[in-house]
């Protein structure tokens, strides 16, 4: 193989290094510019588009209660600084827009598409910084379930029940069941403390431990109770009702049958 041929047919032209350098510089510079707020024209445009869409959606769907400038009203809290994570949780689980005033926002079918939720989140985050939507790496459920379970029992079980079956709070509020909740929403809930839930920030429970909790919840979801049907994981009340209604019911039916006189 000759040098000439290599030069002719090789994919790397002499200008390649230069081009690569340019692209690299442009990317890092662009990213830098993006993060420092002076984005390149294109990404700014895409982002600005999202924010604008978000603003329109916000004005149309949220501003009645949260105010035109997120400042809040008598019927809804201020959203300044709640962050994208909060919006993604509240809107992404259907809790917002609120169906009706009540002890707490109820989960219901999601009202917006994913893009719309993202736009709303971007818009709210663009007004004031707040907790970001979590990184994918914490949501995989590949952490340590045992550590997660322990942290869950100490921090979460008093409201959500050890098996995540949910529980009652005061004045009609409640901690919802966690089965079927998406990992991203579990994470965001810990991060932002929606409704009556306390905030578990990263100093309180580290992102790794949040991932461990998610791992434990996924474990519970994917592994049915080793003892058979779990009766809703509601504890002794369900068991007591079961033995009285079905256990003793069956036994009494049998006694009636045994002592029945033949016709």
């Amino acid at each position: 193989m000759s040098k000439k041929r290599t030069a002719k047919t090789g994919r790397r032209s002499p200008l390649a290094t230069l081009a690569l350098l340019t692209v690299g510089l442009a990317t890092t510079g662009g990213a830098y510019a993006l993060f420092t707020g002076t984005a390149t024209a294109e990404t700014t445009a895409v982002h600005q588009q999202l924010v604008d869409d978000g603003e329109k959606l916000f004005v149309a769907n949220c501003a009645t209660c949260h105010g035109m400038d997120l400042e809040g009203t008598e019927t809804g809290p201020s959203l300044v600084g709640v962050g994208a994570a909060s919006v993604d949780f509240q809107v992404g689980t259907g809790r917002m827009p609120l169906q009706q005033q009540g002890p707490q926002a109820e989960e219901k079918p999601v009202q917006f598409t994913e893009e719309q939720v993202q736009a709303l989140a971007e818009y709210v985050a663009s007004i004031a910084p707040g907790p970001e939507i979590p990184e994918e790496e914490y949501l995989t459920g590949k952490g340590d379930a045992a550590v997660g379970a322990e942290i869950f029992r100490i921090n979460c079980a008093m409201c959500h029940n050890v098996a995540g079956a949910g529980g009652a709070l005061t004045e009609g509020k409640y901690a919802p069941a966690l089965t079927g909740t998406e990992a991203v929403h579990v994470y965001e809930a810990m991060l932002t403390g929606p409704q009556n839930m306390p905030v578990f920030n990263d100093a309180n429970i580290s992102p790794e431990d949040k991932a461990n909790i998610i791992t434990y919840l996924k474990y519970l979801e994917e592994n049915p109770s080793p003892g058979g049907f779990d009766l809703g994981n509601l504890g002794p009340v369900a068991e007591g009702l079961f033995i009285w209604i079905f256990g003793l019911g069956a036994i009494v039916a049998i006694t009636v049958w045994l002592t029945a006189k033949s016709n």
Partner: protein
Amino acid sequence: MTTTAPQAPATPVQSEPQLPPTRGQRFTGAAANYIDERTSISGLVKELGRKIFPDHWSFMLGEVALYSFVVILLSGTFLTFFFQASMAEVEYEGSYVPLKGIEMSVAYASSLDISFEVRGGMLMRQVHHWAALLFIASIGLHMLRVFFTGAFRKPREINWVVGFILFILAMGEGFTGYSLPDDLLSGNGLRIIDGMVKGFPVIGTWTSYLLFGGEFPGTDVVGRFYTLHILLLPAILLALIGVHLVLLVVNKHTQFAAPGATNDNVVGVPIMPVFAAKAGGFFFIVFGVLTLIASFFTINPIWNYGPYDPSPVSAGTQPDWYIGFADGALRLVPPGWEFVLFGYTVSMNILAPVAVLGLFIVVVMLYPFFEAWLTGDKREHHIADRPRNNPTRTAIGAAGVTFYAVLWAAASSDLIGTHFRLAIEHVIWGLQALLFIGPVVAFIVTKRVCIGLQKRDREIALHGFESGRIVRLPGGEYIEVHQQLDEYERWKLVAYNDYQPLMLRPNKKGRITLNQRARAVATRWFFEDRIAPVTQSELAAAHAHGDHHGELEGSNPSQGAISH
């Protein structure tokens, strides 16, 4: 008192030709003789083997309790092979992933190993726990049966008390067992007991330290409860079950009024061989039902709860159902009942419910003596009452059941809140009100229902059923033909005791004692509203009347035997 049984063809009739005994018969005879000569058991067999059991489904509930207890003993024995009652710390190395590497007590680790490593251990654990729930539930239902049929009357008052103590012991067994796995749930239960004990003035704290061997939770309680659970309590329980059964044999069984069944006999099947065979089969049915439940339904998933740690309390933490009424009583106490006296906190929030529950238990236990005093009835009663025929007793029972049920419901106030979308405070307020109103309403409604049913019985006994057949008489008059009961059916409706309010009369010394006055008040409350059973003359009159007119008039004056 005699026992009569349908004559079983047990003895060969003399007139048949005598065949030489076969080899099998010779062997049986020789073996029986061998044993009898050394134990004199034949007297016992003769006595016991001819014990008669009447046939009614509700008479089998006590059996259910007995058989569940046998299941508990069997499965419990299996569990003792593997359970280690130690609170020493170990690191879990078993197969349940979400607990791997977690520090826990040996007791909890061995409970987990029974569930996950020991072959058949999970099934046995679940059979044991489900059987325990069924044991106490069937005792409860059995007690209700005895109460509502008046089967606690003389000569069975003592056996009622024995049975009642059995019920309390069974709850003690249940609670000590619930505390053994040393998981979060059992620890929370113990914490409540600790709090209740500490709530007692002066002795509370010391008692708690004695129980737990120091400050709660300590490292002793599982070992101590284990000894109670597998040694002391079962021993007492077994002994009392023995007493209960001996008294059952001595007192004979009650029966419902039926053709040929009187206060002086027992009609049914003898233990040997029919009842024994049936009972043996029924034992396996109970065992089978329990095993089926245990194989399909999780009970107490200790692996979810994690090792006990005094800080976390899970939502939905409740005791097993039989302790629920006590938990409910604690939950229903309004806030602010503690007060400080001479620098000591008096925990009325603990003491009041404990006192109420204690009183409730004592009242239930002593009820037979109250009714015996009230009626002044010294006769033996072997015919079970139909609940409607003693309206006040039935109403008292209904009120008691309601009271218990409200306390019971209160133990799950949080789950009622979440499942019926109610605020937990509203549930508590509602139940607080219901605790006082419910029993009163239940009393009144039950009493009226009973009296209504008695009236209907009386009507049917006198005039028969409405047959729906309309007949036109030659004079143009339409009547509905009433179908008369036969003698046997009618007997069931008219055979019951009629008590009346006590008439105050001076005794031999010419004085009216306070006791008599109290009894007069009590009997007036008890028997003022009553329907007298149909008498022979009323029946004769009704029939003479009916022969002519085919039971036309519904508004018959004879139905109005209700006084006041």
